């Protein structure tokens, strides 16, 4: 008796949980347009980034960008006889979960390419999985040089690598900002570490002096002791290799303690979030490509983003994810025209897509996208930004 009662409780709780979960979107359950796509070839683009965890905001932005590209090109693809959808999987910014996610995507034979991942630490181990499966991987945000140094023919990225961005920042800080001394911080991630190391190398090569190099731990909030230490050294600037959350906290606590040196970082800081958390007037960041407003397609992107996701802000990598997806979509179009839509999901088709991506010459939202033989983008334009009037504006 007792046992069956307990079992009943367990089942009741499970059902309840399931209802909570499925109930969260049941209003729009019927609005799907599944009826109209009967005689089209169904293919998918895998999208994987952290939807949960510390950097979920950026990861969800990548998902938004990639989904937008897919829906923007739906009509054109339908004319070619293709029904393209997204297969979005959470990688939780964790290498193990990321490799699981990669295997989940390649297990679906309709997946012909992936837009993945945010973290270099995830992209590197997963690239071996995609390579084995013969599927193209275009990363919107993994900037660690190691990713494309592995010799995989199927791995590409639309963002600039740390070496380019870090050394640009080093030159910019010394020559444009006139900084002679700097403190270099990084957040103990492959991204932050790589960026900070490149900055330090270039800054010293230009003739600047690094007064202090320190590592911080992710999720830490208290940097007061670090700030006091930096204040005593009185540097001209602080370079931060890492993401906006910690950078914002460092900037805020530094300004509270009366430090005037600006903080500078890479594209991980280039988001409104940085300013909301604590980024102050005069803080700098660098980001890949030209400013969105100056890009020919920038206004279109902003318009269609706002139509698709009313009330959401454009995060740092949304445009890269959009371009990454577009690069794959362009390749799909080319291969479909060449070999026929039915061939897309075959081994030869997927191989042809990899080759088509390698030959990409596409005018994207972030600028012209094409790849070198390693798979890195040739778009090496970097734009420095400064916080002015509570927003990032390009440095004149």
């Amino acid at each position, binding site marked *: 008796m007792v046992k069956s009662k307990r079992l009943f409780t367990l089942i009741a709780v499970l059902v309840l949980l399931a209802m909570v979960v499925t109930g969260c979107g049941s209003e729009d359950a019927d609005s799907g347009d599944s009826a109209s796509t009967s005689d089209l070839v169904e293919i998918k683009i895998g999208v994987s980034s952290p939807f*949960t*965890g*510390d950097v*979920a*905001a950026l990861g*969800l932005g990548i998902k938004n960008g990639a989904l937008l590209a897919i829906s923007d090109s739906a009509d054109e693809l339908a004319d070619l006889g293709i029904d393209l959808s997204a297969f979005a999987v959470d990688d939780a910014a964790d290498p193990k979960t990321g490799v699981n996610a990669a295997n989940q995507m390649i297990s679906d034979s309709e997946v012909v390419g992936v837009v993945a991942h945010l973290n270099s630490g995830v992209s590197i181990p997963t690239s071996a999985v995609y390579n084995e499966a013969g599927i193209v991987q275009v990363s919107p945000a993994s900037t660690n040089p190691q990713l494309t140094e592995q010799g995989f023919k199927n791995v590409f990225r639309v963002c600039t690598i740390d070496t380019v961005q870090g050394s640009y920042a080093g030159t910019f800080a010394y020559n444009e900002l006139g900084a002679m001394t700097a403190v270099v911080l990084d957040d*103990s991630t492959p991204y932050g570490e790589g960026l900070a190391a490149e900055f330090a190398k270039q800054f010293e090569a230009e003739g600047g002096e690094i007064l202090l190099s*320190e*590592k*911080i*731990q992710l*999720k*830490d*909030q*208290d*940097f*007061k*002791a*670090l700030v*006091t*230490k930096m204040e*005593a050294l009185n540097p001209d600037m602080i370079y931060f290799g890492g993401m906006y*959350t910690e950078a*914002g*906290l460092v900037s*805020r*606590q530094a300004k*509270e*303690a*009366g430090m005037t040196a600006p903080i500078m970082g890479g594209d991980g800081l280039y988001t409104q*979030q940085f300013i*909301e*958390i*604590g980024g102050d007037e005069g803080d700098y960041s660098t980001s890949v490509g030209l400013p969105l407003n100056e890009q020919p397609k920038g206004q279109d992107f902003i318009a269609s983003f706002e139509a698709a996701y009313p009330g959401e802000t454009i995060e740092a990598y949304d445009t890269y994810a959009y371009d990454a997806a577009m690069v794959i979509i362009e390749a799909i179009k080319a291969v479909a025209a060449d070999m026929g839509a039915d061939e897309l999901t075959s081994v030869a088709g997927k191989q042809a897509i990899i080759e088509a991506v390698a030959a990409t010459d596409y005018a994207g939202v972030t600028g012209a996208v094409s790849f070198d033989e390693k798979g890195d983008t040739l778009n090496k334009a970097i734009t420095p930004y400064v916080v002015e009037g509570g927003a990032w504006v390009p440095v004149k």
Partner: protein
Amino acid sequence: MSMEIIGQQMVNGITLGGLYALIALGYTLVYGILLLINFAHSEMFMTGAYVGYFTLIGLSKIDFFTSSNVGLLLLYVLAFLAGMIVTGLLGMLTERFAYRPLRNAPRLAPLISAIGVSLFLQNAALLWISSRSIPFPILFEIRQDDIAGVNVSSMQILIVGTTILLLLVLDTFVSKTRVGKAMRAVSQDREAAGLMGVNINYIIALTFFIGPALGGAAGIFSGMYYGSIKYNMGFIPGIKSFTAAVIGGIGNLRGAMLGGFTLGMIEALAAGFISTGYKDVIAFAILILVLVFKPGGLLGESVVEKV
């Protein structure tokens, strides 16, 4: 190395230590009564911060609260009350549904429940509120004063002052009042206390109100001090405060306080004078050293060998 810098680092350390101490009080209270590491406590910290945030945002729309200093003070008092009451109730709820059924279970079972509650609450905040850092509203000006070359802000004084005040209140409550005596009785021998007419369930529920409420208050302080809150903000302070409670001698209120301030100070000095990257290594190494030489923590009673 000038004295000012050392002094400044001490101020940094004491403030951080105050936050740790406030959270550690919750750990130590619960541990004293149930011998349970309440892993969900770090999420109580986070919940307090979010409730405080929503109260502030909601009430600051009413002119009365923002137009005068009295109103502003009242606004923050209300935010603290709301944060503490809601987290306290959440703590009681957790105890009722996750820990009470396990009161006679093996020691580690409630620990797993606690981890489950922690995962649940953290993901609930992530999925239902936001995955982003949220700026915490600070509607008054924080004064910065120079005391002998050391920069001290009104916020730091507020945090440390409140922590010490709360400890004194709590210490008096536990040692002097009837209910406090009942709490001590339950922590010494639950069954015997029950036989002496103490309502055990009531005492445990009360403990699970006070502990999380203090954690909730610490969460709001943290939001005000660092200026932003996030769904996973409880993780690091949670681990550190638990460490602090153990350094001081877990189950001992004054020990939690001492441990909190000690740990905060160690961290600030280690980060300031040795290396920020290794400050946690130093903090944990000192924890190990303390325990090797004093296995019951600084103020803890030495572990009685059971025979």
